[in-house]
């Protein structure tokens, strides 16, 4: 990480919020200034506050943040599978030039599964406990793919289970989710999501419940499948190691806002947001084994009680007056990535 020290920021200039430079083809999915809120008894919870990003074919976009940062809600907003009390209050989600918000119920049903599928965080609550694994896998296959008969679907289900590394797939198909270990259940979920070979795969903490060697297998598998099928992946996770291994583009989220966005190298070697910097320092890494970790003090944000200014301000060591009252805009850093932190403005003014 020696590079972090040597890179000297020259200046930061304010530009309007704009996604990263565009390759030739249009993005598969474009999220524009998304605001998602939940109406609860204790008030409106603004889980996502103005998130924008473009997702390109064959790319892996990493969304990283801790619990309550709004990363999962962003993913759920895309599929419109929010809880009853949740709604998208502002912004738009565009899939292949058409707004998903204008889709009818039927179109949305076809979109989920066929075009975009999701791997959930918690494999226990996302599998139905009263049906066998085989029934649930076949259901997805028969509904969305060419494997219409029970026999075809069963054969395909066995293939899928083998693909995700489930041992004795024939036996597993007859078992209920409670009979499987957590890791095994998650692999069934992944098999289910990959069943329809979607254009976009949203992976919400896909490997959090898995062991390292299995995680390595699954990540490898996701990469292989992505190259094969050319699908785009949104990888939502809190694990910076997984992000570093997998992603081309990274978004760092905190308190429902984007703190920083850029390539993996930008985020890991030249972090420009106080939160990203803190996060990287708090991780055990190969080169800080003998030192005490530097944790971020305080506790994660309470979304019901959001600060007026920067969401990270209450935990930030370098917070200034302006951080308390004004939300920082995303700024273009000299190396071409974006960060929303007042410190950058201060540094630019100092030099």
């Amino acid at each position: 990480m020696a590079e972090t020290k040597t890179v000297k920021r020259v200046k930061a200039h304010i530009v309007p919020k704009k996604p990263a430079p565009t390759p030739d083809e249009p993005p598969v999915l474009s999220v524009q200034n998304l605001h998602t809120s939940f109406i609860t008894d204790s008030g409106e919870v603004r889980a996502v506050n103005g998130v924008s990003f473009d997702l390109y074919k064959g790319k892996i976009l990493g969304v990283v943040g801790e619990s309550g940062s709004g990363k999962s809600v962003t993913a759920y907003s895309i599929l419109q599978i929010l809880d009853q009390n949740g709604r998208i209050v502002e912004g738009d989600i565009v899939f292949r030039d058409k707004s998903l918000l204008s889709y009818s119920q039927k179109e949305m049903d076809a979109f989920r599964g066929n075009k975009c599928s999701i791997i959930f965080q918690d494999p226990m609550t996302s599998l139905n406990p009263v049906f066998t694994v085989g029934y649930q896998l076949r259901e997805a296959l028969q509904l969305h793919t060419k494997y219409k008969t029970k026999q075809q679907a069963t054969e395909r289900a066995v293939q899928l289970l083998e693909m995700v590394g489930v041992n004795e797939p024939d036996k597993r198909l007859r078992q209920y989710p409670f009979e499987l270990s957590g890791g095994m259940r998650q692999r069934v979920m992944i098999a289910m999501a990959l069943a329809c070979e979607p254009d976009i795969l949203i992976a919400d903490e896909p490997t959090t419940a898995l062991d390292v060697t299995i995680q390595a297998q699954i990540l490898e598998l996701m990469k292989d499948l992505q190259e094969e099928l050319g699908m785009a992946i949104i990888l939502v996770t809190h694990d910076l190691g997984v992000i570093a291994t997998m992603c081309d583009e990274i978004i760092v989220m905190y308190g429902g806002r984007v703190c920083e966005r850029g390539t993996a190298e930008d985020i890991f070697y030249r972090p420009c947001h106080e939160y990203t910097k803190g996060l990287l320092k708090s991780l055990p890494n190969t080169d800080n084994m003998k030192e005490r970790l530097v944790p971020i003090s305080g506790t994660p944000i309470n979304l019901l009680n959001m600060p007026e200014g920067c969401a990270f301000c209450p935990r930030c060591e370098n917070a200034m007056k302006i951080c308390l009252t004004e939300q920082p805009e995303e700024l273009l850093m000299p190396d071409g990535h974006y960060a929303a932190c007042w410190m950058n403005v201060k540094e630019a003014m100092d030099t």
Partner: protein
Amino acid sequence: MNTVNFNSEYLVEVEDLKMYFPVKTGFFKTVPLKAVDGVSFNIRPGETLGLVGESGCGKTTVGRTLLRLYEPTGGTFRFKGEEVTAKNIGALRKEMQMVFQDPYSSLNPRMTVEDIIGEPLDVHKLYNSKEERHEKVLHLMELVGLNAEHATRYAHEFSGGQRQRIGIARSLAVDPSFIVCDEPVSALDVSIQAQVINMFEELQDKLGVTYLFIAHDLLVVHHISDRIAVMYLGRIVEIADADELNENPIHPYTLSLLSAVCVPDPVKAKANKRIILEGDVPSPLNMPSGCPFRTRCRYATEQCAQEAPSLTDRGNEHLVACWNK
């Protein structure tokens, strides 16, 4: 308090620990599931031994068996030179405690924080008056970085990191010299993980406690441990100094385990040549003969199928159980 007044060099001595669970496979047929199959290790006072392995390898069972939450099938466990049996475990639990993985389900939702932390004091009758109990609880809360005002609250009012602090305060209540930490940070947020890891290290410096730190995150284990033991299917395959193990792993399983770690550094992560293991972990009900790892090992030979290798010293307290490496 944690004065060492026993003769052995080690605080914890585990020898050939076995824990089999009976599993019904038919109406009359019961097969032993060998969760832990002959595990031996020692821990020095004030040391942290990290225990890593994949889920189902028996690492949690080892921790639980040591505290006699399960009655072991075989083997011995000596604590401060004294053999731990079903008879004396009640008293010894004052010396040995456990921190559980899930800070949500391991705290009673109907009890206030003061009662949760005070319960071990009640059980072992460690106070004379209510005031003394209150005082002790407040001291413990301060030790783990909780405010005194939190004492009257219930567990659900806290975040994951704070709950884990409550769990740690509870385990420290009886002033133990040995704590089994069963995945204490895996349920926590990244930014909170570092706080809790630091707290474990600070408590060790302050109180001189000995940890058996069970976890699956190898970077976390490497950071906190002095020595690391790697388990596979109920056996320890390699045990060595933490740095030595990371720089110079010998057992083929350790090699692939270390190569599977996702380092939070894109250049290193992408340059990392993964040794992806083929196949699956065999079912512990149907263990392969000889070395348990041989079915996935690329160096496996005839000998591996016939006889299980035992841990042998490769110098510098680096023990490896492998015929070929």
